[in-house]
Every structure is written in structure tokens, then in C-alpha cells.
């Protein structure tokens, strides 16, 4: 049995942990640079605010509504969702973090447990401990689990956990589910299916294998079809590809000193940053793993993985490399022969168009930039203009009281909340 645990309106829910007054009120969170809306509370959705709406249009279209607006604060979201994952780790035999707000679990060996009750209790524990509500879908495969989690989210009667464990429940769910919302069916396939008169997941699952192959002849869509029919065949790697980028390699021989491993990790991190830039995306979490040689049981074994949240989502080589080195310093232990390391970037989101425009930043600002920090100069020489801008973004993060005002117009996060879980200066005040 698989489960997917998914934070409800994740970013909004994270903001509400420290703003309980916003429960039940419309809340939106903006993308990097305050460009457009990336998260909405249910109340905001009910008002008709669409995901992706540019912020300036929000003011135009909803002038009379009181809507709480936040700049994205990945530092906060990363920390709170890290707590959610920690609870899942304690409760589930196996878990796999799929994205910043979703986690798959594999519930092998729990056949004797009332899984519906297990899921409801897990939601209760996460809600109470962290303050973030989750929805849980449980089913014999990942595609059905994803569907179940949608039902858990939509209908309060499920008490945050929907279990599809019989054919009867599966068929009922398929009939109620639009085909274009099925996990793994992209817009293109959905359009094609619609043109064939297939609207529900049930109609899609009822296609014959021959008809399916004649129409698509595609392994991904075949797996989706098979999973809707109850099989378990979507490989774990297929999930990893979507919302994270991983670069890892085995070393040529074994390495025990930190400095050498640092060089490797820097290269993997740089490769991740390159991939992000190629696809015009930024990441908000950088993770590093390090392990010894499993096949040498005559040697001491060690395995560790850790991640950090970036204050601002980034695809800058410098930022990703620095962050990866920070994690490596945390997880590295002397006295082991290491065989493999890897860098994983997660929390991937599109680069906002405004951020791209910043690359043609004006000359005057460039002058100011130069005077700010010789580090930035160095990066400028080594990596070119792009990196300077993205690095500047980080620089502003660091120096909010000081010279940073120079960049006030460069990167906007006018409505950013505090970081009560990662900075002593920001912990909540108790009257």
C-alpha cells in the first residue's frame, strides 16, 4: 500500500502557523520577486483568484476584497515542511520526499493496521505538532494514492484521509474523477482523450489495451492506465525526475578527506544549477548525501543526507555550491572511506519573468553593485553578469539593515513574513 501526504495549500498554511488570525480568511503567496500568485487559501480560491495571476492584476480585479498577501518565504516553508517530513519518518516504514509539500510513503508490513485510522492520526499529529494541515491518500499504487489525496482534500467527510483499498471504492473514485486531473496525464494527452470523448478517469481506465497503444504508444501513459486499473508499476525514479534534480556519482576509488569531496560536490552542485538555468527554474532546497561503500562490509559504514532551505529560491551556481558545501560540512565525518556523494535540488519553481529582466540591469546600479562586495566582483569575473544579479539577490538577504537598500528595486519581497524557526531575532513575541 502506498500513501501520499500533501500539505494543504502549503505556503499559505505555513504562513498561518504564525498568523492564526488569518485562518478562514483569503490569503495568497506570491512567487519569487512578488511576480504572481503561487499559492492560495481555499477562501482565495472561492473568490475566484486564479493561480499564476500577476500580483498587479490582483489589485485590479479584486479592489474591494481584503486579501492577505505574502512574498514567498522558502526559508520558513522549508523548515516547517522539514518538520512534517520528520513526523512522517517516525510514523511510516518507508518514505520518499517528492517535493517541498508532498511525501510518498510505502506502507509495507502494515496490513494488520487500520490504515484509515493510521492516516487520520497522522494528520492529527502533524496538525497539532507543526500546525500545517495535510491530506493523505492511501491506495495500492501511487497514481491511485494521488487521486485519493484529492478526495481527502475536497471532502471534509474523509477527515483528511481517503483510503482506496477495494475495487468498489476504486471504480467509484474513477467515475468521479476528471481524466485531465489524473497524475501523469499532461495537458496534451488530456486534450487528445477529450477529443476521443473520454472525460473521466473511469472512461480512460476502461479503454482496451489495444486502443490505448494504438492511440498513444507511450510507456508513461500506459503505466498510468495500468495503475488506474489497480496495478503497481510507476517506478520511484519516475517521481524523482519531476520535481527535483539530482546529480550524483560514485568516486573513482574511495575518498576520505573533506577537501577532495568538496570539489566533487561543487561540481555536482554546479551541474544542478546549470540544469535549473536551462529549464528556467529556481530551487529552494539544496540537499547533499554522502555514503561509504556498501559492498565493503569490512569497512565502517556511514550514510547521511541533509538539506537546507535557501532564503530565496535560486539557480545561481555560487548559491547552490555554497549551500551544498554548508550541508557537506554538516554531514561529513572523519574516519570513513567515502564512495559516493550527490546533490539534490528541490522545491523547483519557474523563474519569474521579472527576474529575467533584471539581467539587463542599468549601469548606475552596476556601479553601486561593484562597491558593495569584492566577492560579488569576483563572481562577476568568473561567471558573468547573470550570476552577479542572482548573487546580489542573496546579498540583500544578508544585509537587511545595511547597504542592501541599493537593491530594494532589484528584487522585491515587500510582504515577506519573519522566520520564527530559523532566526533568533524573529522568534514570536509573547505578551
Amino acid at each position, binding site marked *: 500500500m502506498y500513501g501520499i501526504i500533501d500539505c494543504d495549500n502549503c505556503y499559505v498554511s505555513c504562513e498561518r502557523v504564525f498568523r*492564526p*488570525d488569518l485562518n478562514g480568511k483569503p490569503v495568497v503567496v506570491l512567487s519569487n520577486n512578488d511576480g504572481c500568485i503561487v499559492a492560495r487559501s481555499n477562501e482565495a480560491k472561492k473568490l475566484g483568484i486564479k493561480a499564476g495571476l500577476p500580483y498587479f492584476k490582483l489589485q485590479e480585479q479584486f479592489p474591494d476584497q481584503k486579501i492577505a498577501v505574502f512574498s514567498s518565504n522558502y*526559508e520558513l516553508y*522549508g*523548515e516547517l515542511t*522539514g*518538520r*512534517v*517530513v*520528520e*513526523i512522517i519518518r517516525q510514523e511510516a516504514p518507508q518514505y520518499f520526499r517528492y517535493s517541498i509539500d508532498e511525501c510518498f510513503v510505502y506502507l509495507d508490513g502494515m496490513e494488520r493496521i487500520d490504515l484509515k485510522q493510521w492516516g487520520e492520526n497522522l494528520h492529527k*499529529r502533524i496538525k*497539532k*505538532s*507543526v*500546525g500545517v494541515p495535510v491530506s493523505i491518500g492511501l491506495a495500492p499504487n501511487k497514481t491511485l494514492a494521488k487521486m485519493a489525496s484529492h478526495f481527502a482534500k475536497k471532502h471534509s467527510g474523509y477527515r483528511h484521509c481517503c483510503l482506496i483499498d477495494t475495487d468498489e471504492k476504486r471504480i467509484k473514485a474513477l467515475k468521479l474523477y476528471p481524466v485531465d486531473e489524473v497524475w501523469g496525464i499532461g495537458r496534451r494527452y488530456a486534450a487528445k482523450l477529450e477529443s476521443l470523448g473520454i472525460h473521466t478517469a473511469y472512461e480512460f481506465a476502461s479503454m482496451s489495451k489495444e486502443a490505448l497503444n494504438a492511440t498513444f504508444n507511450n510507456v508513461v501513459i500506459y503505466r498510468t492506465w495500468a495503475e488506474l486499473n489497480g496495478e503497481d508499476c510507476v517506478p520511484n525514479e519516475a517521481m524523482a525526475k519531476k520535481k527535483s534534480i539530482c546529480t550524483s556519482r560514485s568516486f573513482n576509488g574511495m575518498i576520505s578527506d573533506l577537501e577532495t569531496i568538496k570539489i566533487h560536490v561543487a561540481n555536482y552542485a554546479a551541474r544542478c544549477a546549470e540544469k535549473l538555468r536551462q529549464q528556467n527554474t529556481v530551487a529552494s532546497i539544496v540537499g547533499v548525501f554522502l555514503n561509504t561503500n556498501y559492498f565493503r562490509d569490512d569497512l565502517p559504514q556511514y550514510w547521511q543526507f*541533509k*538539506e*537546507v*532551505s*535557501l*532564503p530565496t529560491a535560486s539557480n545561481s551556481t*555560487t*548559491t547552490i555550491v*555554497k*549551500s551544498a558545501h*554548508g*550541508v557537506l560540512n*554538516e554531514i561529513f565525518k572523519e574516519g570513513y572511506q567515502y564512495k559516493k556523494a550527490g546533490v539534490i535540488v528541490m522545491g523547483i519553481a519557474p523563474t519569474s519573468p521579472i527576474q529575467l529582466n533584471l539581467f539587463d540591469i542599468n549601469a548606475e546600479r552596476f556601479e553601486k553593485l561593484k562597491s558593495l*562586495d569584492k*566577492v*560579488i566582483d569576483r563572481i562577476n569575473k568568473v561567471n558573468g553578469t547573470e550570476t552577479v544579479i542572482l*548573487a546580489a539577490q*542573496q*546579498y540583500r*538577504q*544578508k544585509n537587511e539593515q545595511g547597504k542592501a537598500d541599493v537593491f530594494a528595486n532589484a528584487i522585491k519581497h515587500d510582504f515577506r513574513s519573519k*522566520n*520564527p*524557526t*530559523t*532566526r*533568533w531575532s524573529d*522568534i*514570536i*513575541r*509573547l*505578551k
Partner: protein
Amino acid sequence: MSKIHIIPSEFIKELELQLAYSIKAGFPSPAEDYQHETLDFNRDLIKHPEATFYGRVDGDSMIDAGINDGDIAIIDRSAEASDGDVIVAFVNNEFTIKFLDLTHKSEGYIELRPANKKYHPIRINDSDDFEVWGVVVWTIRNWKK
């Protein structure tokens, strides 16, 4: 230049206090049999790291309970709040630290009691949308200036 913010959901590092042994010459230390892990506040005082948050006391409403302005409160959200506990609640648009008084629960209201005569208890009726945000398990005060 990019400062790193390690996600502190695993409170497994730092803050170690060495156990002080008194070892008498010529005698094997009786403590040796009891040598265990070093005392660690993060491990021993924070039972539920994933549910633990920190707050800074702002004001003197709890001063008679020994909770002063500027103290750091360690708040466990997973702990069940009982009568008499020091709790954190969100009331009138701010976080407040008070004693939870359930004496009048059967009469349809509870009270958040300050520990300072200057302040009045906050009365919360059954019909109010009220939630205990977390339970204060420790407070910390710095003495060495």
C-alpha cells in the same frame, strides 16, 4: 556570502556539558560504570523537536511566576495542555503567555491567568474560536551580561 540556514528539525548537535567526575587517586572511579552520553539540553529538554518552537517574553504579565521580560520560552505544540500549565495562545491578534485555568470549564468558560496583579485574567467563552497554540515546557534567562 550566502549564509546557510540549516533546517533545525533534527536537534542533534551542539550544546554539550561535560559530566564532572570527582576521581580519587588510587581508587577506580565508581562513576566509570555509569559513563553514558554527555548531557545535552537539545536532547534532554526538547522531547519533540519537530513540535518545538521558541518565543521571547515581551512584558511583565507573568513576572510573579518567575517569567520575566526577555526570557526565552520553549514551546511544545504536541504537549496536551492541562489545568495550571503555562501556555501560549493567540488572543486579540497577539501571542500571549499565561496560565491555563480550567476551573470554570463546566460553566462554559476558561481563563488565561496572568501572574501579575496589574493584569486581568482573559476570559474565553465556549463559543469563542480559541485554540491553545502550544505549551511552555521551559523558560531560559540569561544572567551573565
